[in-house]
């Protein structure tokens, strides 16, 4: 049994390169038994990559790792598991087609009497024991696929916590949890700490750290920027270390003036998803939509855009529009940047030029039929320059660009159509700090030019610093409207979470 204070993990000079990008550039990290060490940084800083090295997902990293005093070379997940490392991933890796019990014991199911068989009764009993031990309210026989995101999180945690686990990594565990679940999670984590398990806690939600972490390490652009005891740390200092600049430097000054109403949404409803959504958007206004995961924000936006079916009435510039398909919405002057860039945004395998021009190919073709490479390239170069896309090469395959630059390409796609209304769903997710600041400036430019912007974001400080008004969505309904300037992050979070408010 490890004593508190024993070093269980020592990582020195870790380097990891993906193609041309140095995701980790000589990072040091260590962890003691019974310690909660927070690892923070913006997207792209390298937190997940560092933990993936620890989980054995990459065989080709540089640097030295010592576990429980012995040097190891981590090359595959099974080896990492055998050494007592458990990871709870941000994008959950639960098996939807199996039950809760089967997920909890995945990879170490109890055997039956005949060699090679499964003892299903023991499986259910052991899974139930794990759930009871952790205090999770889940049914062992339930299939996992229909469970809410929060409950799937709990299944994932129950899976990672095994009898022989000595080191646990939590990668953004609270990203999709409500306040109650967060509190329960913290209790679980403190319980694990008391058992002498070392815990790495990855988050970019700095506000929760003082409550849970003992130490904190900040990464930025693959490098270690600093390591401090939590008690000696102020949030604003951490934030500065993470961003390399102060928060106020991140956001452009407000220079847009909201004018006439251009979009009116009345009674938008879809049974089971959202109900009676009514709001207005003015030209030159940034309307923020805030809500927790599961509140229905994305579905509402997609319905306005015509990507989801819904009952209700929408008028654009006074004329009713039918919301029948994205194509029609596009023709009327509405654009939308989707939440999942990889799945719903970029056209993998295509060039930057074709991705940027995807929505205006009719204008870039001779007689609307034959693609005109010169016009396509010219369009691409215009957007590359306007949005500072790197590398500035129209012929590059889109998937080789960083997340931030890919997002700029998608933005360029919509700007080419000069929409009157632009809906942005998590536009800065998975993007490095520098590009985030650029995106904020671009958004302010668009608003100042008279476009109506709807901004959906889980980053409350984004909404608070950019929006003129904020709509709070809970359980598919608009529960409150708050002003942008002047509202602080905690108040917004509270409004998103509080039950029994109207």
């Amino acid at each position, binding site marked *: 049994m490890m004593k508190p204070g024993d070093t269980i993990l020592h990582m020195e000079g870790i380097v990891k390169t993906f193609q041309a990008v140095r995701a980790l550039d000589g990072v040091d990290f260590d962890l003691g038994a019974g310690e909660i060490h927070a690892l923070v940084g913006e997207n792209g800083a390298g937190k997940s990559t560092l933990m993936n090295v620890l989980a054995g997902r990459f065989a080709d990293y540089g640097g030295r790792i010592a576990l429980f005093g012995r040097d190891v070379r981590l090359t595959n997940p099974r080896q990492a598991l055998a050494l007592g490392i458990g990871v709870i991933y941000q994008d959950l890796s639960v098996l939807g087609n199996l039950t809760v019990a*089967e997920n909890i014991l995945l990879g170490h199911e109890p055997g039956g009497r005949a060699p090679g068989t499964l003892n299903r009764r023991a499986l259910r009993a052991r899974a139930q024991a794990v759930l009871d031990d952790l205090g999770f309210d889940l049914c062992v026989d339930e299939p996992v*696929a229909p469970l809410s995101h929060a409950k799937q999180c709990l299944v994932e945690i129950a899976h990672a916590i095994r009898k022989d686990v000595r080191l646990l990594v939590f990668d953004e565990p609270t990203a999709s949890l409500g306040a109650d679940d967060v509190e329960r999670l913290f209790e679980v984590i403190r319980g694990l700490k008391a058992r002498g398990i070392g815990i790495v806690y990855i988050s970019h939600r700095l506000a929760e750290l003082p409550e849970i972490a003992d130490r904190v390490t900040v990464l930025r652009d693959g490098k270690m920027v600093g390591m401090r005891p939590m008690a000696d740390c102020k949030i604003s200092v951490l934030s500065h270390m993470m961003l390399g600049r102060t928060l106020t430097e991140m956001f452009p000054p407000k220079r847009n003036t909201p004018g006439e109403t251009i979009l009116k949404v009345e009674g938008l409803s879809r049974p089971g998803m959202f109900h009676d959504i009514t709001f207005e958007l003015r030209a030159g206004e940034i309307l923020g939509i805030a809500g927790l995961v599961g509140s229905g924000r*994305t579905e509402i936006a997609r319905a306005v855009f015509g990507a989801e079916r819904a009952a209700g009435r929408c008028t654009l510039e006074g004329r009713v529009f039918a919301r029948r398909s994205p194509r029609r919405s596009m023709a009327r002057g509405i654009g939308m940047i989707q939440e999942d860039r990889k799945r719903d945004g970029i056209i993998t395998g295509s060039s930057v030029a074709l991705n940027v021009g995807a929505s205006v190919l009719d204008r870039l073709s001779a007689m609307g039929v034959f693609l005109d490479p010169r016009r396509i390239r010219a369009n691409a170069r215009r957007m590359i320059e306007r949005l500072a896309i790197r590398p500035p090469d129209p012929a590059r395959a889109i998937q080789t660009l960083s997340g931030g630059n890919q997002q700029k390409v998608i933005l360029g796609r919509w700007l080419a159509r000069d929409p009157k209304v632009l809906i942005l769903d998590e536009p800065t997710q998975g993007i490095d700090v520098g590009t985030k600041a650029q995106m904020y400036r671009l958004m302010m430019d668009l608003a100042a030019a008279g476009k109506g912007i709807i901004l959906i974001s889980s980053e409350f400080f984004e909404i608070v610093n950019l929006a003129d008004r904020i709509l709070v969505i809970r359980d598919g309904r608009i529960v409150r409207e708050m002003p942008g300037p002047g509202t602080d992050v905690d108040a917004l979070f509270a409004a998103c979470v509080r039950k029994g408010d109207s």
Partner: protein
Amino acid sequence: MIQALSVVGLLAAICIVASVRSATFFSWQNLVYNVLTNAAYLGIIACGMTLVMVAGGFDLSVGSTTTVCSVAAVLTLQAMAGQPVWLAIAVAVAVTTATGVMLGAVNGASVAYVGVNPFVTTLSTMLIFRGIALILTHGGQTVSVPLAFKSVVGRIYWGKVSLFGVAEYQVTIPILIFVGVFAVSLYLLHLTRFGHYVYAVGGNENASWLAGINTSLVKSATYAICGLTCALAAVIYTGMSNTAQASSYGGLELVVIASVIVGGTPLGGGGGGLFFTLIGLLLLSVIENLLPQFGVQEEYRNIVRGLIILIVVAVDVLVRGSGKKARRT
């Protein structure tokens, strides 16, 4: 589940209509000797194919694999001419089985260890294996079982056994072998850790890998087992004509894959199973049996076969709502 139920319903409806319109359909003779015996060797391969597809892959090369196995069986018997019958057959079965497993393992190695996707891998091996069969038969000649063994080998296909000793109700050996293979497959898929992992890998291969499951071994094992089922089917079917040809079993893979899909195993794996496949196979076999009985001419039969598959899957897609989950984000 809905798809499986609709298939059962469709099968029942067709059987009822058939027995009304044709006096001979529901006879033991027709059902057992024609429908089920013909379906038996397909069913054996379908057991292997189900495993492959539940794990998320599929195997276009089963027809060619079965061909190579049947050629191997006959050639082994020829090489054993002059030996006692039972020894010759035992050796032939051993050689054929080994051949099937080896060919399956080639598929498995390519898909699971090299990383070529199942479609490309098995499309290529489909051609390669058939080429091997051509070489073994010196350019496509028919090879025959030696005269001395013909009657015993023939009994593998044509032999009948009385059910519970009642002389009126006899089942053919192929059906018995299929039942055995089906039972073993059920045990493998539902009672062993390996079978559990087959579902896990089909459900989310990445998560399974991260959980420490040896996904490469699981996937390649499913292909090896499928090869094994091809070998068994070849052994049975050789008994039908006592010959082997490099050109036989064409189109076999499509029927087997269709059975699995119609039965309800989704193309991505992770669901479905052996009973589903059995239902799918029964439906397709009954339709096969009825096409000539109902006077459907040769030219139209393919259309009927294709339409059944398309309609069954389309109904499932429409009823389930094209797989989109109603979850808020």
